[in-house]
């Protein structure tokens, strides 16, 4: 073929491009998971402490994040900011939505963790002279954590994978990078396989580690 081709094959340097994009996936996921977990724990504690009143207010709001597809949430928020007069980058909009999405999922987990600690245990700690916060920190946290760590890991893994949806806003993370490369190289199978391997490499270790932790904590 003598004509000039606009497509070039997949090259070794493209792996660097993908690795950089994987770094962005990791960045946005770590931000969302860390901040979202802290927020979610607070929400979970509020839900557990306020019962019905919390369920009727905060619970309903958090429930919306879990009942509407993330992709719709992202598009809504991204288009909402210009309406109120802000222009935000896809990264900021995506991170904010992911944080709230994570916090909504973690809130349910955290609430389950707090409720998993028997009320008698908490009364016992209080009657030993612990303050409310000491009870929360030294009794509820360690006991509840063991009960819900696997669920939390499930949420974290889910967010890592769901961060791929931020690509619809135009943020060049792993999945978006794959689309760019596919357009250039016209080798969708190869590139999707490589990107799949990247995602797998990010998420598989987490699921293994938590599976091991879960097993170890069961026996001691």
């Amino acid at each position, binding site marked *: 073929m003598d004509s000039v081709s606009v497509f070039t094959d997949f090259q070794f340097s493209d792996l660097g491009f993908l690795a950089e994009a994987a770094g962005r996936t990791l960045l946005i996921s770590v931000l969302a998971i860390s901040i979202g977990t802290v927020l979610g724990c607070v929400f979970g504690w509020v839900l557990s402490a306020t019962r019905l009143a919390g369920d009727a207010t905060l619970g309903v709001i958090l429930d*919306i994040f879990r*009942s*509407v*597809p*993330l*992709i*719709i*949430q992202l*598009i*809504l928020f991204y*288009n*909402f900011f*210009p*309406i*109120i*007069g802000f222009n935000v980058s896809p990264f900021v909009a995506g991170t904010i939505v992911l944080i709230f999405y994570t916090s909504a999922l973690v809130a349910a987990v955290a609430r389950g963790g707090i409720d998993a600690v028997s009320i008698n245990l908490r009364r016992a700690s209080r009657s030993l002279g612990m303050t409310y916060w000491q009870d929360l920190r030294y009794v509820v946290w360690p006991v509840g954590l063991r009960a819900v760590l696997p669920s939390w890991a499930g949420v974290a*893994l889910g967010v890592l*994978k*769901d961060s*791929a*949806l931020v*690509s*619809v806003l135009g943020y060049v993370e792993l*999945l978006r990078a*794959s689309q760019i490369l*596919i357009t250039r190289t016209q*080798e*969708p*199978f*190869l590139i*999707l*396989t490589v*990107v*799949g391997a990247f*995602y*797998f490499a990010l*998420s*598989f270790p987490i*699921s293994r580690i938590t599976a091991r932790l879960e097993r170890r904590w069961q026996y001691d």
Partner: protein
Amino acid sequence: MDYTFHWRPVFRKLPDLLEAGLVTMEVAVLAMLVGVVLGLALAIIRMSGLKSITWFAVGWIELARNTPALLQLFFFGFGLGAFGIHLSPFLIVLFGLSFNNAGYLAETFRGGFNAVPPTQVKAARSLGMTPTQAYTRIVIPQVMRVVYHPMTNQMVWSVLMSSLAMLVGYRELAGETQFLASKTYRIFEFFLVTAVIYYVMVKLILAGSRLLSWRLFRY
């Protein structure tokens, strides 16, 4: 704030959106049914302990659970094109969602079967039940109880995940919304109404599941 909301174009297209909502339910339920069958098969293969085919089930399950659903969808959409297989948008979505559902459900079913102690089957057999009776009367009812709630969740996920179809050109609820939104430039309004429709659909599924569980697990 110098943005004026225009809701009329959205309400004029509301019948289209609701119809697209039915398409979403259709594809989500179909993907769930296929996912249940495949997931059950994968769980049985994985529990069978036959080395020659276990790797296949384990590979499927781990791939489905450790890569984004969107990537899986792209794989069926664009990846298979490399082998000259070009699926229609509907099939891309159906295969992608079924692949994902099957991976998650396989683990759910495995957990369900593991929750029933094998001694119960022995006990049932020694009481004179046939193997079929032992399974249909002792094992399956207990497994159903364990997997019912996770299955409901998976159904909800199936509906939520089906929104990814808009990125492979299938016109279910999200795809239809994007189509209409780009025609009228009322992006926010359209997607807000769609968000409400998704919310209602999810709540209906959860309510239906609760009703069904009262009926199923009365004793």
